[in-house]
């Protein structure tokens, strides 16, 4: 009973928030609505018994990703109204519906066939413990690869967004550093 109430409440809230994200013309409204939708999605994970996944969803999405977006928005002109593509509305809606039905078929095909045996059954221990055991045995290599991928993404983000990251102060001679400082001072008038 309570599960049904929680499901419908959070389903309505999530759909409303994401609808606002997709349709609003203000970038800040879209950002806030997206952050709220992420928090509401974590409620589904808690209902489904995936406690650790819910906590990760809150920490990573509403914490890290949203903070990154809001930092990124400082660089852009967000007060301006967002212009929209003027395409055929019916084609867009029709294509989206067809694609969504396809996704349902993809997900429900293995359920209909009903031949799947649980490889890693959910046991009596807590969800976090079970996740840890599976993650560090069967999925250890993907875990390490994901760690390297995050490292690469972090370095590329710093290099792309940072200024003067192509020059290394430790590898330059004293004269080059002096020249760079002079150049920077003369450039300040332009900035």
């Amino acid at each position, binding site marked *: *009973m309570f599960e*049904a109430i929680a*499901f419908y409440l959070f*389903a309505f809230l*999530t759909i409303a928030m*994401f*609808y606002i*994200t*997709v349709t609003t013309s203000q*970038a800040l409204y*879209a950002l806030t609505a*997206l952050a709220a*939708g992420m928090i509401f*999605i974590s409620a*589904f*994970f808690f209902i*489904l018994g*995936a406690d650790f*996944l819910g906590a*990760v*969803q809150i920490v*990573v*999405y509403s914490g890290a*990703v949203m903070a990154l*977006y809001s930092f*990124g928005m400082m*660089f*852009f002109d967000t007060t301006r109204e*967002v*212009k*929209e*593509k003027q*395409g055929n509305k019916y084609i867009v809606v029709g*294509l989206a*519906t067809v*694609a*969504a*039905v396809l996704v*349902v078929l993809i997900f*429900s095909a293995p359920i209909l066939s009903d031949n*799947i045996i*649980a*490889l*890693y*059954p*959910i046991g009596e221990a807590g969800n976090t413990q*079970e*996740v840890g055991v*599976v*993650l560090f045995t*069967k999925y250890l290599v993907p875990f390490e690869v994901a760690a390297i*991928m*995050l490292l690469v*993404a*972090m370095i*590329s*983000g*710093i290099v*792309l*967004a940072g200024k003067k990251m192509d020059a290394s102060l430790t590898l330059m001679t004293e004269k080059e550093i002096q020249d760079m400082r002079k150049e920077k001072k003369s450039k300040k008038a332009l900035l």
Partner: protein
Amino acid sequence: MEIGLNHYLVLSTILFSIGLVGVMRRKNLLMLFFATEILLNSVNIAFAAISHYYGDLTGQMFAFFVIAIAASEVAVGLGLLIVWHKRYNNIDLDYLNTMKG
């Protein structure tokens, strides 16, 4: 009334179609990134629901990796977007046609 797997799959589908509509109708690249996040999250819900109703942890594992990929995608994408905005002073898709033959 019992909430079954189909409820979650239908919810995931609705969210996925909202994200798809967003991807198709947005012209601003930042808004396009938001729609991509919606797509990834709807798939995560489906993974977690299947994991719960099958009693199998593999779905949750995939959801974790999807979250990791989403985080790194945001970092690289925003970096590229900032570089683009510095050079051309806008982030509209229509101006992103320098590779046009």
